[in-house]
């Protein structure tokens, strides 16, 4: 006997639903999509987080959204160094105990936090907001380089530490700043590059080990 042909119908609504993992509510879907925009969050994790929030008491969930809203509305960037701040000047720039003759140039706020965590640095910062990379659409004018140069004329800066990534783009940015400051009296330095502290030599890659040898430093017994 001949089998009846299966009829395939196409319902656009059904198609959209299926595409979004068949969630039962459009409101839920919207929330999941918003969470999935965050870095490192996929659709599944987003759904888990949304369901968690849904199960929380209303006060808890409201507290969560309020905190985020306040953060977004009230956090500013520091007028001087472009670090995050609640006021015109950030807590580092306005701290009279910091050494205002040294300035550390970093790519983003993440590096400020990392360097602060070392407790080794008492100077000021300058956040560039990225590094020069035409392929990513970032040129020198898209970074806070002009304001950095301006700071060297207005503030009593003696030394500038270039603490950028050791990638080609990081080096390009450092070199660009170096060029811009060629007529200034500011002393430029950059982070040491070489073997990491606590590393076994045999596991270091050849380039790092080679550079560490070439740029070796005097040893004074400790």
């Amino acid at each position, binding site marked *: 006997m001949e089998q009846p042909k299966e009829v395939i119908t196409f319902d656009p609504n059904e198609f959209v639903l299926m595409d979004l993992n068949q969630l039962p509510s459009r409101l839920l879907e919207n929330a999941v999509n918003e969470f999935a925009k965050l870095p490192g969050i996929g659709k599944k994790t987003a759904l888990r987080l949304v369901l968690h929030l849904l199960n929380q008491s209303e006060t808890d969930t409201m507290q969560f959204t309020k905190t985020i809203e306040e953060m977004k509305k009230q956090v500013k960037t520091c007028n001087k160094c472009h670090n995050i701040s609640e006021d015109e000047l950030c807590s580092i720039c306005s701290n009279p105990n910091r050494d205002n003759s040294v300035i550390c140039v970093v790519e983003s706020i993440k590096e400020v936090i990392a360097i602060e965590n070392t407790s080794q640095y008492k100077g000021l910062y300058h956040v560039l907001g990225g590094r020069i990379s*035409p392929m990513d659409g970032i040129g020198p004018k898209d970074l806070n380089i002009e304001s950095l140069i301006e700071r060297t004329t207005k503030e009593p800066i003696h030394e500038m530490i270039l603490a950028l990534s050791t990638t080609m783009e990081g080096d*390009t940015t450092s070199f660009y700043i170096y060029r811009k400051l060629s007529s200034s009296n500011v002393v430029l330095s950059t982070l040491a590059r070489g073997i990491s502290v606590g590393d076994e030599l045999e596991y270091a890659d050849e380039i790092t080990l080679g550079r560490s040898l070439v740029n070796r430093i005097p040893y004074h017994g400790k």
Partner: protein
Amino acid sequence: MFLQHLSLVNFKNYGGLEVELSSKINCFTGNNGVGKTNILDAIYYLSFCKSFLSNNDAVNIKHGDALFVVEGRYQVNDSQELIYCGFETGKRKRFKRNKKEYEKLADHIGLIPLVMISPYDINLITGGSDERRKFVDGIISQFDREYLFDLQRYNRVLAQRNFLLKQYGKTGYIDDSVLDIYDEELVETGQQIHIKREDFVSRMKPVFQQYFTHISKGRETVSLIYNSGLSNQNFREQLQSSRDKDKQARFSTVGIHKDDLDFMLGDFAMRRLGSQGQQKSYLVALKLAQFEFIYQQCGFKPLLLLDDVFDKLDSDRVEQIIMLVAQNNFGQIFITDTNPQRIHQVLSQIEGEYYHYHVSPNQLERVYETI
């Protein structure tokens, strides 16, 4: 160092194969399509973790099966090295040395140096200059990580610089101060690369010429010229003077990415005037010079694979090549050929050990051996 034993499971046309190999010369003869080259490819796999024919591992699995295994037992000085390569569809390729799996394939490459001469080498002559740069870069960077680092850096800077020039075409605006920075960075890495390429070619050239003279019995003179814009003029000045040209062209017109190797027959380009046999002889001599270079760098003789190398060559040249590689300068050798008489005739004249295998579909038969 040599390969003592090779075993294949579901590799290309072989369901299962075990081969004992001579430490000197191993010949595989048979008709077209019986799987001579596949044996060489398996040996290539064990050195470079990939096929020399394709980058897709799945195509090397015997049709209808789901995995292949290639295993080789090498004698290195007084000890043995057991190299295992296994690939299953949908899973990652696994490489083991003495039953211990590698974390990165890159850690294995270089352990068993190998030089392969195959009909595909003709691309070096007929192909674009990128083929010849790849040839030079591949050899130098095997032994010089700094070179590889500089090369990667150079290419990255070049990509950014070219992108900027391309943007200029769209927007009509370009930041010259950023181009200045890229120029400096190109000069810094480009000059290092140039020096090392120049040194490499000058070391290769005499060895290469000597081999060619031997193969052609001195009937032709050949040369190998490193053709680089950096040789005659300062790279920094060149970048400065071609800035406007680069802007017009929307890409970087000068630099080591324009380098080439000129293959010369007398005063003419080998590509234009060389006969097929002359081109082939040229490539064999070039690859043998590569062999010599690797030997000097790593201190032991690479395996030498000659795939269908005697096609298009006259009997004089075939004899000269076999006599050359059978000498003590070379280590273990693998040869494939469709003509068993030709190879047997030449090999029977030489002293030393050789195995001659006859390949028929899916199987091997050792037809001759000398000690």
